[in-house]
């Protein structure tokens, strides 16, 4: 047996599984999205793009995903910075605070938010007590609820992406800026922030794609009234049983996500190529 054959044998099972159980299903979905009564059709896409309701769902998905990504970046950067510069014991503690929720089921975390945001939950109650909200104030089934829940769900991805870059950053660069008379915040703004941009970019791509395709949290916190794209796909699959339409919506989601990732994938390819 040659080396080449040994490697092929090692590779074959994984490749076969991926081809049969991953690539084929994706192609099946692509095929269904353009399949009509008689031959190819663009009707399922036309139905989505011609209906103000679905366009609204799409717009909400993009808008909320951008907002969620922005909040994650603004809060995640200082958190990751403090983690990178903290003493080992504090760093370990913060790492646990980030990883424990990340590893907990999204269903469980969303349940926690449902309790916090419910009519008599802590947050609405607090806002009412402070006089910031009226008696009929609701947080559940609003876009605010979705954003809050998703920021918690996706924050770990942003923090860990930035931390990966900050951990490798030469601390002397920062010290040099400080000795030259730069203030602490100045060094952060002009040295650390630009150098951590690759991490922020990776985190942002992750947060955006994950929140645009997220199902459990938006569906439970937003309900049927405040739908995002993934919830609309789920409804087409399980309730209206219109699989062609579900496939078309999935293709639209896929294309959108590939567009967002394209610059990142290209830059990765250049680095490895």
């Amino acid at each position, binding site marked *: 047996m040659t080396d080449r054959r*040994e490697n092929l044998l*090692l*590779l074959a099972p*994984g490749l076969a599984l991926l081809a049969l159980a991953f690539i084929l*299903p*994706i192609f*099946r979905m692509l095929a269904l999205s353009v399949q009509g009564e008689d031959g190819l059709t663009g009707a399922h896409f036309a139905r989505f793009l011609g209906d103000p309701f679905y366009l609204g769902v799409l717009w909400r998905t993009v808008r909320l995903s951008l907002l969620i990504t922005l909040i994650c970046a603004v809060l995640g950067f200082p958190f990751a910075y403090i983690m990178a510069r903290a003493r080992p014991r504090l760093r370990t503690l913060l790492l646990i605070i980030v990883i424990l929720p990340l590893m907990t089921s999204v269903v469980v975390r969303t349940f926690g938010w449902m*309790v916090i945001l419910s009519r008599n*939950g802590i947050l609405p109650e607090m806002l009412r007590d402070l006089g910031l909200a009226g008696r009929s104030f609701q947080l559940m089934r609003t876009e605010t609820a979705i954003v809050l829940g998703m920021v918690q769900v996706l924050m770990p991805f942003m923090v860990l992406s930035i931390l990966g870059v900050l951990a490798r950053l030469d601390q002397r660069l920062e010290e040099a800026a400080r000795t030259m008379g730069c203030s602490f915040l100045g060094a952060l703004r002009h040295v650390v922030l630009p150098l951590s941009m690759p991490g922020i970019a990776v985190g942002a791509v992750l947060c955006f794609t994950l929140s645009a395709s997220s199902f459990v949290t938006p569906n*439970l916190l937003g309900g049927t009234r405040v739908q995002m794209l993934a919830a609309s796909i789920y409804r087409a699959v399980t309730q209206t049983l219109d699989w062609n339409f579900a496939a078309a919506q999935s293709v639209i989601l896929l294309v959108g996500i590939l567009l967002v990732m394209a610059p990142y994938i290209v830059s990765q390819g250049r680095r490895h190529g």
Partner: protein
Amino acid sequence: MVREVPLWLKVAAGIFLAGMTLLLLGPLVVVLGVSVSESQFIAFPPQGLSLKWYAQVFGDARYLVSFRQSLVLALIVTGLASLFGGASAIAIHRRAIPGAGILATIFLSPLILPTIIYAVGMLMFWSATFGAVSFLTLVIGHTVICIPYVLRTTLAVLSESDPYLEEAARTMGAGRLARLWFVVLPQCLPGLAAGMFFAFNISFDEAVLSLFLRQPDLTTLPVRVYGQLEFSPDPSVAAVSSIMIGVTVLLLLLADRILGLKRFSEG
């Protein structure tokens, strides 16, 4: 001389850290709180202290069936993913096949593709080809999702390993299987173990694929909880959720004990 970080900034950092901790851990604490409440209704802060909701969960056949299903599923998926992912990682690492870089990208693609899109495709493909969805469908789907994690952690470990060890074994007359088993596999082990933790955790907690492939007799624990949340949650859901948090904590402790938290977070 570098000036110290100003005091007000340290105070602000402290407040910020406290707020972030509240944001990240708050939902989990709330779930744990609700699960020990005496009240019939979901309420936080908990009223009274009681373990009756846990007793109810352990007496409820539906939860127990789901728990067993999730556990068996996660164990099988962990085994399969480490087998497929590990073997592929070894072959890709050796770069003996042209296009190994592209291969790695193909193997990692389930990581990039949103699960919901894969779930839609898998449901449609399976229904058209084999008919009704079964436990096997879920095993295959979860394995596909988990392979990239094992592959990545194993590749990372292999890239730091000594390439001459295997050559040495070969010169000493070790056969192919002996080299794989006694030289390559031990080198892979730390990465393989980290990947297995990820695989178990992901499979045990995964909800989207399991929801799309849900059948009356095929309801994993996350799907069971999701269903309860959609309709009529009572504090027993909080008890189940707390048990799931417990499984996560256990897994984290185990991973820290065996691998160290640092390597784990880098995977």
